[in-house]
């Protein structure tokens, strides 16, 4: 039971990290990333491949750096185009990552994946304390990333990002370097997703491509929508409650007779879809709304003017 609770808390922590990252990219900077699962997978694999050689800390840094670099490239490609293009490119990126993981067997182990991933502080952990250490590590990571995100939101960089999101033209007219701001935000978000992937690999010590389905992306969007775009606190609450609800639905099988495993997972995933749509329609501001007033209240979007 204790180890099950630890599992749940660590899953919440991973979801919270992914959510914080997406919140920075989409909530704060207005950049849609449909390839979240790909970045998480990339982070996990970078860690799994590098950590045995360079140690867990350097591996962690490398995960963040690789994901940041690729995020930057993808956003640079599409940053001058409509939102739709970044969404398409990122979704394609995630597919490519999945295909490469499956097919570059020498490096990634193909469908079998990689086992025996070293955990942080593995050498100095007393026997039987493994779960406690990884739990502390996960919570520590969330606290650090949360504090960083909060500081970012309140910084001039965060304010500029919000301005750019709400009205890129007006922000450009005010002299904000719009493109650079967006690329940077997307890269930082990518780095955090890499960290989340690394945590995933640390925790399971075994990874394979089937662990990184587009569902991760759907959860992250659900968390950001539920938590309220741009609000980090709301996000952590959102991610937490979604993971708890999802975990609770595992027990539905005992309650609803005649539903098999596949149907149950279909029900859960379908509910995520319904949740995303319903929250978008009914609670556009999320459960905890962003404190600051928005540009858009003063400058209506083109579609309303026409």
């Amino acid at each position, binding site marked *: 039971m204790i180890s099950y609770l630890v599992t749940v808390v660590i899953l919440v922590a991973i979801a919270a990290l992914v959510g914080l990252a997406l919140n920075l990219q989409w909530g704060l900077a207005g950049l849609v990333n449909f390839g979240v699962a790909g970045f998480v997978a990339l982070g996990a694999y970078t860690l799994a491949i590098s950590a045995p050689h360079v140690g867990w800390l350097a591996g962690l840094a490398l995960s963040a750096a690789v994901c940041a670099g690729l995020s930057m490239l993808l956003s640079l490609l599409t940053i001058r185009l*409509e*939102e*739709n*293009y970044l969404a*398409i*490119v990122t979704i394609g990126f995630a597919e490519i990552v999945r295909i490469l993981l499956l097919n570059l067997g020498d490096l990634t182990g193909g469908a079998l994946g990689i086992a025996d991933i070293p955990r942080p502080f593995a050498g100095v952990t007393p026997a039987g304390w493994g779960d406690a250490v990884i739990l502390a590590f996960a919570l520590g990571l969330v606290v650090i990333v949360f504090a960083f995100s909060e500081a970012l939101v309140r910084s001039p960089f965060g304010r500029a990002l919000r301005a750019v999101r709400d009205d890129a033209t007006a922000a450009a007219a005010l002299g904000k370097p719009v493109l650079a701001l967006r690329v940077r935000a997307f890269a930082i978000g990518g780095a955090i997703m890499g960290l989340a992937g690394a945590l995933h690999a640390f925790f399971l010590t075994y990874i394979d491509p089937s662990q990184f389905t587009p569902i991760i992306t759907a959860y992250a969007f659900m968390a950001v929508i539920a938590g309220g775009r741009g609000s980090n606190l709301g996000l952590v609450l959102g991610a937490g409650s979604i993971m708890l609800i999802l975990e609770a639905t595992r027990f539905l099988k005992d309650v609803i007779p005649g539903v098999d495993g596949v149907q149950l*997972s*279909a029900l859960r995933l379908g509910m995520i879809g319904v949740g995303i749509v319903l929250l978008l329609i009914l609670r556009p501001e999320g459960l905890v709304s962003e404190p600051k007033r928005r540009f858009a209240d003063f400058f209506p979007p083109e579609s309303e003017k026409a």
Partner: protein
Amino acid sequence: MALQLFINGLVTGLLLALPALALTLVFGILRFANFAVGAFLTLGAYAAYTANVVLGLPLPIAAAVAAATVALASLIADALVFERLRMRGSITLLVASMGVSLVVENICRFIFGNAARSFDLAVARPIRWNGLRINHEQLITAGVVVIALVLLHLLITASPLGRAMRAVADNASLAAVRGVERRTIARITFALTGALIGLAGVLAGLDRAIDPLMGWNYQIPIFAAAILGGLGSPIGAVAGALLIGVAEEMSALILPVSFRQIVSFGVILLLLLFRANGLFGAKAIRK
């Protein structure tokens, strides 16, 4: 070998043309990329499977059932979701379409499970000619898509409805003051594109096994085709689909088959690097 791959590629491209066209038509009118295209394609395949295998109807009738089912599903998605979010901008619509995609895909999974299924179809001997091999499914696909494209071309270029669709895509508020209700045109567009996607689902089911992720696997090539043609340009989408189909199949000459799907993504990246408006000169879609 190369010629065989080229022909296979043309057929694949024709199959992609219908959903790519659907994507681009909806984009023209509502200004968002509908990520539920793949899931609706899956729905079409399962609708035809139900009619064909469960109810024992012949495949052409099953195809009509699939087209009608997906058209109806698109109308429902529009009424319940997209219309309500229309004023909130394309990012919100994008994310909502992802939600719709999850719902549709998992309705299929809930009813039919993850097992691969196929239509009840007599296996026919392929036609051989000069070392080329063309099977009946390919002929059916080519014939159905070409007829659909010709009809659609006539509809778009020569009918009042087509004019109205192009007018709304060009300038929605001007269309409104010329007496064209955007709402009506959007509904008709959703129904029409739904039927196209449903039909594509049936053709895809002829080509490969039907499972809940089937449409998802077409998603990237569909988007690549639409971007290649310039989002919003119908002719461009068809040409883009043919190019993507041929590029994917011909890539077998230089790449292992498992890397085939990378081709579409590579095309998207190259295009964005060098010619973001698509090959066919649609209006720039910049911010």
